[in-house]
């Protein structure tokens, strides 16, 4: 009953749908041209190493942004600690494959379980907090978990873990694609069930939700665990894909902020918003990073981009993020008055 997407005008919806389908077909089919058989048949090569790296990264962020969206967008708890789930998933696969010699496929099955259990344990105390307190406490989770991992000898301590290299762009691309599909599908289903309405009610007014019978604690923790499991899968795939993990790589708080920006930019609380946000923002980031001297300029560029948005369309950023933007001069002036002191 409550689907934001439904509020777009039908024509716009149809064209968005068409464009999405074409893009999706391209993304799914293009890698197949890199198979030997396709090459022998003389098909043009539509992908290369860089293509795979970029698109797989985009898909990874689709998973992360969608997972964040379940907690931050649907339930209204802006978590800055989801990166811990990604990291734990990565280290689960890392430890099982590198230390125990498990096959990657088997280890990947465990990757969602460990972060989900972790979310279960920390969820109850953390999800009692609201606002700034929740945000910074979860930020602390991200930092502290990374730090602890960084001190544990069997996990490679500060050196990190090396996994046997698996050379197959195609495999990791399709794995990440499946994970992204799973994340989007999960959100889509949640949005159409009683569970999803419970989460929305909590976001909109938690006390009102409680007195009409929503088991708020259970719902919040469940959402947290689902997000953790999805992020853990992405982390697990990343570990083998990259064949090397350490604290800086898989517990980067800036990645957490990235996934939030993506979800919020595309439209928090919707199933497809985080996908759109992840695609757009990750492509911008890749462009900035590819344009010159590495990540310093891309950080500055992103920061300036955000600052410019904030200065010139302050309410625009918010409304735009909330999916309500109408771009006109009058609107700029009015919103400028409303959000600044």
């Amino acid at each position, binding site marked *: *009953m*409550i689907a934001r997407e439904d509020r777009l005008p039908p024509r716009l919806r149809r064209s968005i749908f068409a464009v999405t389908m074409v893009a999706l077909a391209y993304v799914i089919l293009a890698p197949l041209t890199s198979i030997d058989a396709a090459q022998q048949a003389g098909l043009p090569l539509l992908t290369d190493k860089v293509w795979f790296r970029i698109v797989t990264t985009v898909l990874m962020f689709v998973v992360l942004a969608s997972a964040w969206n379940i907690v931050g967008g649907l339930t209204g708890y802006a978590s800055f600690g989801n990166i811990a789930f990604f990291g734990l998933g990565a280290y689960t696969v890392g430890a099982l494959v590198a230390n125990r010699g498990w096959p990657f496929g088997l280890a990947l099955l465990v990757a969602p379980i460990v972060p989900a259990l972790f979310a279960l344990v920390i969820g109850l105390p953390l999800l009692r907090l609201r606002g700034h307190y929740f945000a910074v406490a979860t930020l602390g989770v991200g930092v502290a978990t990374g730090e602890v991992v960084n001190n544990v000898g069997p996990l490679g301590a500060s050196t990190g873990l090396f996994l046997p290299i698996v050379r197959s762009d195609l495999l990791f691309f399709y794995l990440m694609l499946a994970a992204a599909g799973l994340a989007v599908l999960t959100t889509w289903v949640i949005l*159409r*069930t*009683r569970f999803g*309405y*419970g989460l*929305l*009610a909590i976001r*909109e*007014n938690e*006390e*009102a*939700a*409680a*007195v*009409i*019978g*929503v*088991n*708020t*604690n259970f719902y919040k923790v469940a959402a947290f665990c689902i997000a953790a499991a999805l992020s853990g899968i992405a982390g697990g795939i990343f570990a083998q894909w990259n064949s090397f993990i350490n604290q800086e790589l898989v517990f980067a708080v800036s990645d957490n902020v990235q996934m939030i920006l993506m979800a919020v930019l595309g439209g928090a609380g919707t199933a497809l918003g985080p996908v759109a946000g992840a695609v757009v923002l990750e492509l911008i980031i890749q462009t900035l990073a590819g344009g010159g001297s590495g990540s310093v300029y891309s950080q500055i560029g992103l920061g300036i981009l955000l600052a410019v948005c904030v200065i010139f369309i302050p309410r625009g950023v918010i409304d735009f993020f909330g999916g309500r933007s109408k771009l006109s001069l009058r609107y700029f002036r009015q919103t400028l008055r409303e959000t600044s002191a």
Partner: protein
Amino acid sequence: MSLLALSDVSKRFGGVNALADVSFAVEPGDVLGIIGPNGAGKTTLLNCISGLYHLDRGDIRWESASIRGLAPHRIARLGIGRTFQIVRPFPSMTVRENTAMGALFGRPGARLQPGAALSEADTVLDLVGLGEKRHYPVLRLTVPDRKRLEVARALAMRPRLLLLDEVMAGLNQVEIEQALEMVRRVRDSGVTIVLIEHVMKVIVGVCKRALVLNFGRILVEGPPADVLKDRRVIEAYLGQRYAREQERKET
């Protein structure tokens, strides 16, 4: 057996005794009015019953089983619905969706699916007089309509006990008449009601019994007409102006 019974319920906020040793019972079929000056502890009382606040002392029993310390959603599913004095709609949803949420989560037995909850909402919205505005986003509703929506969402839970917190504040005479009619209909459908109100006409018009709170204590309890005549109540609650008017009438 009483439906709801409070014994020695107490609640403090820092130095403020919001509730002190409050005891009373609500019988099935009752319509109990609660009045009292601003800050008397009326809203705090509802928050204690619905489990949003933990009691410092005392006990609350529902059909003689203690509900002290139960989570709010469990209390709700026992069949206790409530409204908020400062309305708390779900802002991104329509009137109909808001109401359906009550049906979706508040039913103890059957788990409704979203579709069924929506048609349930339609029935309730007609009852409270919001039928024609069911597709409005809540942010377009006037304050009186938002209060009606609070009632609708609580009613959609099919509660056995309905707690109403000043749902008629700010209504004009015509609207109060309509609201009174609504309360009577709800009562006639077998729901027990506790209502907090400042409007005397409502208390006299629909309540079987009334109870006066002042500084967190029960001052008087009894039939509304008697309670309103009690001198302590006139002094404590209705203030000097009302007392003077009374004198003028008598002379």
